[in-house]
């Protein structure tokens, strides 16, 4: 009999318990993920931005401003996905862009990129948990509850449950992410079908949009530029797929497939979202709505479709927080493993094969930032928390431009085996640099103080690293990728 008896452990589990150090003589993260998990991770982190957040670009730039932002920022993220797919298909390591920086640029850049990643995902997880508690309040109100809901309880519950999932194993965590992300994505398509989106005159109304400049571009081209900042919400976080590279059965196959199908999904979802919302809600309302897709479903479809969109909103929020905890912990773990942070964080759980200390560390950090707007009774602080995330991401995209040039220079195509080679180099890198600069400028217009504060924080962190931490970095030992010697060295 060659099959596995029902209930008996699979061969891999037997190997894990009998030989937890693995066949190579060291404890390793579990290699169990495929392209679908990578898709679920990338799209899962992002899709909440379609359910809420993107519509603030309507407030800044009007309906057409939001659409232009979706396209332009979509190009930025397509470049990010292409570049990440190529580089990470050669770097089967947790840490993603941090590991790229370590190999391509140097320790100080790597330290900063690691911090960008940790803050981007931890802040996003905190914001998601905060939104989750708001959704619980909204659901309670819809069910007839008139009192106030204790937001602290549900913020902490969301983070604890997701941290527990992450602690216990990556396969279950990202399998759940895949399922709930797929349901949230399908819900957007169902809304498009329910509003007869293929026939613009049936239920959707674009007449006012097309005929009135005041509705379409109320603040002109400056408004369009300002809309870029919130256009980020359509796609922010797709680059998180790279963090799972070390846990893929084959990073060379899974990362490009999962990332590229992910960005295609998001581009379609962004345009569908804009289309059904713009054809249903007046721009003045859409620009300030908290849950635009759900509101559109209530107005234009109702019943079961509205319920599905409510479920989609909750699922998208949970998937985002879940993916962010996964990614932030991998970035922190990788930095600990290389001694960029205390090596204590670089530990792997011998049974679950997860970076358990890094996961535990980010729990109080995420909770602190999630409850801050509630504690200080300043809901607007949520926007600041999210802006910390967006700005950290933008700084990281700026790093990706020189990183890509250097990667192709040191290891040209043909010298190093790539799972995916992106076309038209250096056009994607240059395009990424130009659009990232535009979005940084747009963000500076809206959140200049936050941007300056964040840059000062990273500068101080860099000084700390150079003075007190760099001496612990074992530069020779951190390069473990089986690559040929770089050209020119």
């Amino acid at each position, binding site marked *: 009999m060659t099959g596995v008896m029902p209930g008996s452990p699979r061969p891999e589990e037997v190997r894990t318990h009998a030989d937890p150090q693995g066949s*190579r*003589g060291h404890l390793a993260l579990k290699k169990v993920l495929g392209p679908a998990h990578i898709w679920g991770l990338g799209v899962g982190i992002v899709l909440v931005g379609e359910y809420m957040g993107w519509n603030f670009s309507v407030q800044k730039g009007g309906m057409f401003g939001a659409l232009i932002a979706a396209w332009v920022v979509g190009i930025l993220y397509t470049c990010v996905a292409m570049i990440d797919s190529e580089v990470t298909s050669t770097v089967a390591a947790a840490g993603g862009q941090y590991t790229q920086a370590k190999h391509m640029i140097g320790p100080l850049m790597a330290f900063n990129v690691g911090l960008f990643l940790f803050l981007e995902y931890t802040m996003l997880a905190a914001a998601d948990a905060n939104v989750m508690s708001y959704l619980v309040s909204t659901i309670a109100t819809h069910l007839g509850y008139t009192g106030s809901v204790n937001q602290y309880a549900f913020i902490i519950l969301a983070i604890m449950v997701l941290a527990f999932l992450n602690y216990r194993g990556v396969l279950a965590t990202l399998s759940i992410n895949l399922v709930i992300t797929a349901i949230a994505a399908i819900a957007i398509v169902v809304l498009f079908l329910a509003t007869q989106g293929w026939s613009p005159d049936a239920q959707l109304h674009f007449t006012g949009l097309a005929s009135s400049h005041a509705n379409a571009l109320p603040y002109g081209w400056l408004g369009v530029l300002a809309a870029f900042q919130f256009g980020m919400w359509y796609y922010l976080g797709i680059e998180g797929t790279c963090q799972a590279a070390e846990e893929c059965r084959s990073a060379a196959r899974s990362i490009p497939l999962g990332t590229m199908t992910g960005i295609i999904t998001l581009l379609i979802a962004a345009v569908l979202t804009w289309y059904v919302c713009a054809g249903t809600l007046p721009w003045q309302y859409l620009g300030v709505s908290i849950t635009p897709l759900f509101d559109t479903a209530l107005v234009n479809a109702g019943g079961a479709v509205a319920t599905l969109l409510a479920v989609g909103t909750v699922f998208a929020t949970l998937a985002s927080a879940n993916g962010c905890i996964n990614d932030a912990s991998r970035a922190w773990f990788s930095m600990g493993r290389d001694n960029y942070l205390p090596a204590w964080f670089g530990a792997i759980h011998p049974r679950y094969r997860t970076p358990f200390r890094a996961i535990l560390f980010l729990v109080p950090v995420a909770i602190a930032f999630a409850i801050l707007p509630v504690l200080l009774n300043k809901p607007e602080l949520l926007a600041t928390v999210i802006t910390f995330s967006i700005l950290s991401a933008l700084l990281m995209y700026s790093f990706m431009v020189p990183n890509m040039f250097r990667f192709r220079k040191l290891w040209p195509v043909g010298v190093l085996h790539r799972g995916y080679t992106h076309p038209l180099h250096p056009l994607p890198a240059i395009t990424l640099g130009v659009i990232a600069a535009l979005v940084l400028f747009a963000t500076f217009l809206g959140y200049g103080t936050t941007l300056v504060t964040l840059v000062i924080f990273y500068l101080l962190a860099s000084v700390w690293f150079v003075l007190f931490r760099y001496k612990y970095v074992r530069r020779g030992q951190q390069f473990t990728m*089986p690559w040929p010697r770089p050209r020119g060295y």
Partner: protein
Amino acid sequence: MIVHVAEYLAWIISGLLGAWMLIDAVKVSREHPEEFLTTSVEGTDELLASPAAEQMLNPTEETA
């Protein structure tokens, strides 16, 4: 009423999960030496594997 029950449940579940993770982390740290828990190295990929890579990752294999 249901909301209050849900709030209490949320606190209890959060407390239990947090306590479980902390206790487990302490237990694992006590049962295994630090050198063992922090032995991981960056991953390899079967599509990228080569004899040179194997040699780099397992330098002692040849001499054993």
